[in-house]
């Protein structure tokens, strides 16, 4: 199994979710994060003082998937999240050595 982590633009979440649902990825976990990257940030101004805000709201999606699904899932995410504008984000893959479904105690591929 692998853990697929995707950093995407917030307004793309609905699309990515739909894409994953369509390919029967049945679970994922979503976190509100802030990203720093080439996209750069913006400046805010309060009573004349400038604040450089380097961090931009992003959404992180984590999904543990079976090995044979990894490529498809990554592609689906990339497809759904792309706007072709800077800041679209990344998807990365890390190894998972085991997973348990808390409710049933099922393990590994059964637990995904």
């Amino acid at each position: 199994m692998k853990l697929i982590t995707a950093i995407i633009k917030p307004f793309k979440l609905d699309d990515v979710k739909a894409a994953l649902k369509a390919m029967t990825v049945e679970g994922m976990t979503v976190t509100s994060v802030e990203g720093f990257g080439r996209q750069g940030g913006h400046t805010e101004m309060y009573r004349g003082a400038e604040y450089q805000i380097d961090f931009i709201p992003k959404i992180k999606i984590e999904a543990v998937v079976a090995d044979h699904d990894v490529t498809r899932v990554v592609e689906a995410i990339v497809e759904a999240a792309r706007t072709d504008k800077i800041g679209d984000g990344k998807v990365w893959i890390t190894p998972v050595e085991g997973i348990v479904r808390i409710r049933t105690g099922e393990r590994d591929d059964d637990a995904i």
Partner: protein
Amino acid sequence: MDSGNVTWILVSGALVLFMTPGLAFFYGGMVRSKNVLNMLMMNFWCILVVPLLWVVVGYSLSFNGSGSVLGNFGRAFGRGFDFGGIEPAVMIFLATFAAITPALISGAVADRMKFAAWAIFVPIWSLLVYVPVTYWVFAPNGWLKARGSLDFAGGTAIHVNAGIAALAVILVLGKRKGWPRDGAPPHSMPLVMLGTGILWFGWFGFNAGSALAANGVAVQAFINTFLAASAAGLAWALVERIRNGHFTNLGVASGIVAGLVAITPGCGYVTSMSAIAIGLIAGVVCSVAIGMKFKFGFDDSLDVIGVHLVGGLVGSLLIGFFADPKGLGFDFAPGLFFGGNLHLLGEQALANGVTMAYSFVVTFAIAKALNATMGIRVTADRESEGLDVTEHVETAYNNSERTMGRSH
């Protein structure tokens, strides 16, 4: 009709109407973010339903009559008023009192009551409990008033009444899951403090407006309201500082409200220094009283009993000591400290005792009846998931930047 007096009554009415949203924020800030909308809704509901009921029959039954126990229908459906006189203004001013009284109860039932049950409870309780008690305490011929008990702006009829009713309802409703071991801190203290500010602001209308004229009594009631709130806020803060080592915002807020409750019955009967004394006493007593619920094991979520019942009783009984007709220059029975005898104190005790007994019994019966028919408690699952989503299909805060699909 004196334009100054009319203005005073109308402004006071607007202020008291504003108190119910204020109470909603005061309570709403204290609950978890998953239950805040339910709390707001329970309060707003009272200013939708009760005023209509009040104009249709409530006012007439509460104030219009010559008997000693209940009014008649002489002012029902808005009829019988003298359009050029002060009475319509007084009637609508009092509508705000009728509305906020059941709203007070909502703090006790927080986090677990079915909204449908609350929706029905409010008008029934208003009719069966608020209306008769108000007649006894306030109507010119009401028997408790006629015997000589004093209640300037609603200590007995409103705070003690709502406080004891809260106890009756939660005995039927039961404790929240995990209480008292588990809990959650207030989800938004700034919201609590906003509610506190609005309540204090509005309470000037509540108390000083109850003079029903812009006269010396109104001024004194205004002064007393101010000072008792300050004194009780300070007292509660100091109790916490001494007991736990810190001044807390929630302590200050609670103290302010306790002081406002306690001065409500006596604000037109005592001098400034007595108002400070009443405030200090209420702040200390209520800050201790809110511990009772853990001792006796009733889950009064937001301390309606500790603040409104206890604060109301303290303030009402202290009239028996502090009432000072000479100091204020108009005529009523003096309290023990100002040349009176035990009579006034006895009447205060009786009025509150009767109110508590009646309100407790009838409220308990209403709650039992609703529970038997429709059920008054949400399921355990709904309680865990939160009442905002399960009872109102809404979420209080959606701070996300996300866009989502919508259908209609």
